[in-house]
C-alpha cells in the first residue's frame, strides 16, 4: 500500500523555497552580532598592534590603553548582543574563528615585543589579523 501522499512538483518547489527562506532568516537573525564582532575585533586589534609596534613613549602607552579600551568595549557589546542566544558561541566553527584570530594576534604581539619599530613586520602582522578576521566574517556571512 502506498502510504506516501502525492507531492506535486509545484508543492515540492514551494517546500524548497520555504526551507531556503527559513534557513536564511534563522541564520541572518542570529549571526549579525558575531559577524560585526569578529570584523570589529580584527580592525581594532590590527590597528592597535600596528600602532604599538611603531610607537614609543607616551604614544605607545596611548596605543596600548586605546586598544585595550576598544577591545573591552567590543566584548561588552558582544556579550550584551548575544544574551540568551549564545548557543553558537559554543560551536566548533566559532571556536575556530576565535582560535584563528588569537594565533595571528599573538604573532602580531610577538612583533611588537621582539621587532619593535619594524614597519614591514608590523604591516605584515597587522595585515594578517585583518585578513584572518575578514575571512572568518565572510565565511560566517556566506555559510
Amino acid at each position, binding site marked *: 500500500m502506498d502510504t*506516501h*501522499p*502525492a*507531492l*506535486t*512538483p*509545484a508543492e*515540492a*518547489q514551494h*517546500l*524548497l523555497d*520555504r*526551507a*531556503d527562506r*527559513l*534557513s*536564511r*532568516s*534563522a*541564520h541572518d*537573525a*542570529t*549571526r549579525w552580532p558575531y559577524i560585526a564582532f569578529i570584523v570589529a575585533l580584527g580592525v581594532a586589534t590590527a590597528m592597535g598592534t600596528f600602532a604599538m609596534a611603531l610607537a614609543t613613549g607616551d604614544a605607545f602607552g596611548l596605543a596600548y590603553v586605546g586598544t585595550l579600551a576598544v577591545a573591552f568595549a567590543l566584548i561588552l557589546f558582544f556579550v550584551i548582543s548575544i*544574551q*540568551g*542566544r*549564545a*548557543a*553558537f558561541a*559554543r*560551536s566548533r*566553527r566559532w571556536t575556530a574563528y576565535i582560535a584563528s584570530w588569537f594565533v595571528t594576534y599573538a604573532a602580531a604581539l610577538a612583533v611588537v615585543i621582539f621587532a619593535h619599530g619594524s614597519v614591514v613586520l608590523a604591516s605584515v602582522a597587522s595585515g594578517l589579523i585583518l585578513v584572518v578576521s575578514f575571512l572568518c566574517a565572510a565565511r560566517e556571512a556566506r*555559510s
Partner: protein
Amino acid sequence: MTTAVPHPRHKLDELLQNPVRFSIIAALDRASTLSFKEVRDAVEITDSALSKQVSTLEAAGYLSVGKSFAGKMPRTSLTLTKEGRVAWRNHLATLREIAGSLD
C-alpha cells in the same frame, strides 16, 4: 516485462515530511547550532510543540540537545548532527528531483 520506476516521493524522509520537523531542520541547516528560543522564534511555534518535535528528532539522531546554564538560567541548544544533515540533504535532493519535473 517492464519494471516500473518508483516515484521519487518514496525516497522522502518520513520524519521530515512533518511540517514542524521540516522547519526545525531547515532553521538549523545554515546555522548548525541554535538556542531553543532561536528555533522557536524562527519556526513560530509554542515551547511545548517544539519540545515534542525536538524529542522525536533527537531520538532519530537528527539533532543533539545541549544543556547549560547562564548564571541560574538554563539554556538549551539544538545542533544538527551529521546524520541529520545527511537525511536533510537527501530529503532536499528528492524534493528537487520532484520539482525538476516542473521544467
